């Protein structure tokens, strides 16, 4: 998928967990990992022993990955975003923590800030694809990608990345509001059908199967619904410039990132 991945890590990260992540990333095409740890000003661990980081590095190297360790300081999200750019990473990988008591996947403020600030794509790993346990590691052939678009400027940016993914199935979902009269609605339908067909053709060489659908409704709700319906592993989205009063990464992306069970690949 992407050559170099930056993984932000914090103290307490377990080697067996990072190994599982490494397996997935390797299977999806990554061969170089940058482990990045930020110590906040005034932190108890600032400048202390980093042997735990070396253990993580070794765990990943066992998988045949090329691993480097980098350190940063001060504002965590800004440091990660800067480092990713500086190290020439193709993506930033984040694993969300499961909160069983409310049965959903919540993002912390650092992840939220990172999604807002990053100038390179962020891969937010949620429930799907599952980390390898008893079952086999997911491969590219198994990968189901949901590409959510409204054909706006932000949603066309992910297309080169979609070509990089090269999964088993790419489903293009266009969500919109209904036009205000039947005639305009008919014209819009025809226009979108042509556009969707063109994007399908563009992506067909990179996937075993490419399909598309066009729905009317609330973008975030529809994306979440379809993603569960097709058991998508990754939802590919473009990050919009936030409007005044809206969520930092755009309301739709915000809701999808927070509530989705599929992983999110957010393209800035």
């Amino acid at each position: 998928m992407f050559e170099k991945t930056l993984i932000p890590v914090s103290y307490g990260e377990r080697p067996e967990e990072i190994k599982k992540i490494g397996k997935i990333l390797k299977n999806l095409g990554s061969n170089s990992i940058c482990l990045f740890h930020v110590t906040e000003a005034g932190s108890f661990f600032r400048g202390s022993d980093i042997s735990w980081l070396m253990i993580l590095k070794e765990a990943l190297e066992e998988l045949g990955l090329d691993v480097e360790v980098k350190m940063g300081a001060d504002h965590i999200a800004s440091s990660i975003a800067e480092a990713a750019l500086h190290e020439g990473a193709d993506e930033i990988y984040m694993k969300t923590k499961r909160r069983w008591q409310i049965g959903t996947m919540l993002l912390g403020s650092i992840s939220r800030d990172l999604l807002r600030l990053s100038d390179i794509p962020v891969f937010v790993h949620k429930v799907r694809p599952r980390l390898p346990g008893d079952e086999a590691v997911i491969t590219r052939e198994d990968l189901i990608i949901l590409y959510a678009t409204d054909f706006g400027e932000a949603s066309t940016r992910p297309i080169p990345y979609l070509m990089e993914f090269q999964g088993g199935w790419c489903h293009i979902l266009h969500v919109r509001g209904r036009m205000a009269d039947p005639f305009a609605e008919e014209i819009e339908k025809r226009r979108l059908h042509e556009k969707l067909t063109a994007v399908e053709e563009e992506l067909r060489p990179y996937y075993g199967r490419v399909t598309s659908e066009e729905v009317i409704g609330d973008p975030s709700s529809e994306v979440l619904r379809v993603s569960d319906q097709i058991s998508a592993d990754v939802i590919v989205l473009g990050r919009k410039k936030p409007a005044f009063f809206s969520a930092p990464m755009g309301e739709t992306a915000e809701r999808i990132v927070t509530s989705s069970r599929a992983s999110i690949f957010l393209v800035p």
Partner: protein
Amino acid sequence: MWIDYMKRESVFLLSSGIILFFIAVGIITPDLLESVSQSIHAGILDYFSWLYLISAFFFLIFVLGIALSQYGTIKLGYDAERPQYSFFGWIAMLFAAGMGIGLIFWGVSEPLLHFLMPPPFLTSSSPEAASFAMRYVFFHWGIHPWAIYTIVSLSIAYFSFRRGMPALISSCFYPVLGERIYGMPGKLVDVLAVFATVFGTATSLGFGALQIHAGFTHLYGLSSAISVTIGIIVIATALFMASAILGVEKGVQILSKINIIIATILLLFILSLGSTPYILNIFTSTLGGYINNVIDLSLQSYPFAGYEWSRDWTVFYWAWWISWSPFVGLFIARISRGRTIREFVLTVLSVPTLFTFIWFSVFGGSALYLELEQGVDLARVAGEDVSLALFVFLEQYPVSGLLSLIVILLLIVFFVTSADSATVVLGSLTSGGSMIVPMYKKVIWGLSLSTVAIVLLLTGGLDALQMMAITAAFPFMIVMIILCYTLWIGLSQEKDRVEK
């Protein structure tokens, strides 16, 4: 064949069925109707009176926002279209819509009632109560009712003239319902519009009949029995039914114009023969007070003292305007084709409002002058019989007999023209938006309007009329909130439409 007819005419059958059921219950068991409608009415007031205030204020902000935004330049019609009527002709017709029975009925009574029975934090019959009374009259009859009408008329005008859809409330719901506007959800919206129109218009007709009756009783000593009021409704019904069936639209238009001329002459007569400087001072100071306090007035329900008062007056008015809005909205929309949204909104909000302010300053101001400066006990009369106050007021002027007769004539003509227009609008709403309405529908709606007014008068008089207006308006208020959303969706697609 019957199934096809039922499908095609489902709005008509459903709405007329509901109204017929209401009439039947009112005739067979008036006590049951009274107790049920009282419970519904009490429930709405207990839990949702605040919603009426917030909605009306929101409608005002919304229409002003749209008028002053980039969407203000959008035409209610195709881009090359020109207004169908001249500016002055259009304004005259706006007056016709805005000047109705209510203005004559409440012109003298309402300021006097507020003056006599203000909220508990004011002393009855005090100068403060007088100032409060005038300010609230301006508020109840001012910019808010027109904002309420504008929501409906702007939506209908936009979706039918610019988007080429039928002139129905359900057409405005296309952005949220899609093809379902042709199914049950869309039909339900139209039924709610019919329901609100019937009760809103019946309320006005009831007021009109009560006042015509009071006038005849006062002038000629006619019996004050309710049967006479019913007789007046029956005669007026015969008149407007004849007009609606014969399709004497030209005649109705001429009558409306004559009515406005007579009303204006009456206004000038009272202004010149009363204390003109006093009236003009009342107009000026009340206008200042109104402008200065419009936000406070809009959202003030006096929860600590005067809550009952606010519910009895402001909430009733807002509900009444909402229940009138499908009817007035359709009328205003029809005459405004070819105008820009900005021109439409700003004119509709300002011109009739200003005329109404002058009307109330002249009639209400003169009544307060007679009460406070001349010692005429008008407020007590208004307190005892709302419909009588106007005639006692006219007695203080020369040729009072003639003036009273003119007022009764005005009321009758307003009654006929309003009921006639309402019959046509109801027919159109239940005929898929078509202006060619079958005769039997006109007859059914005409009779329904009058019968509902009679049933309401028999079950509880003025209180029942007010109660039903509030109840019928509630579901339509929700419809209007959604209309704002759908209109916004439609307008926000305009830029893309032009590009495409």
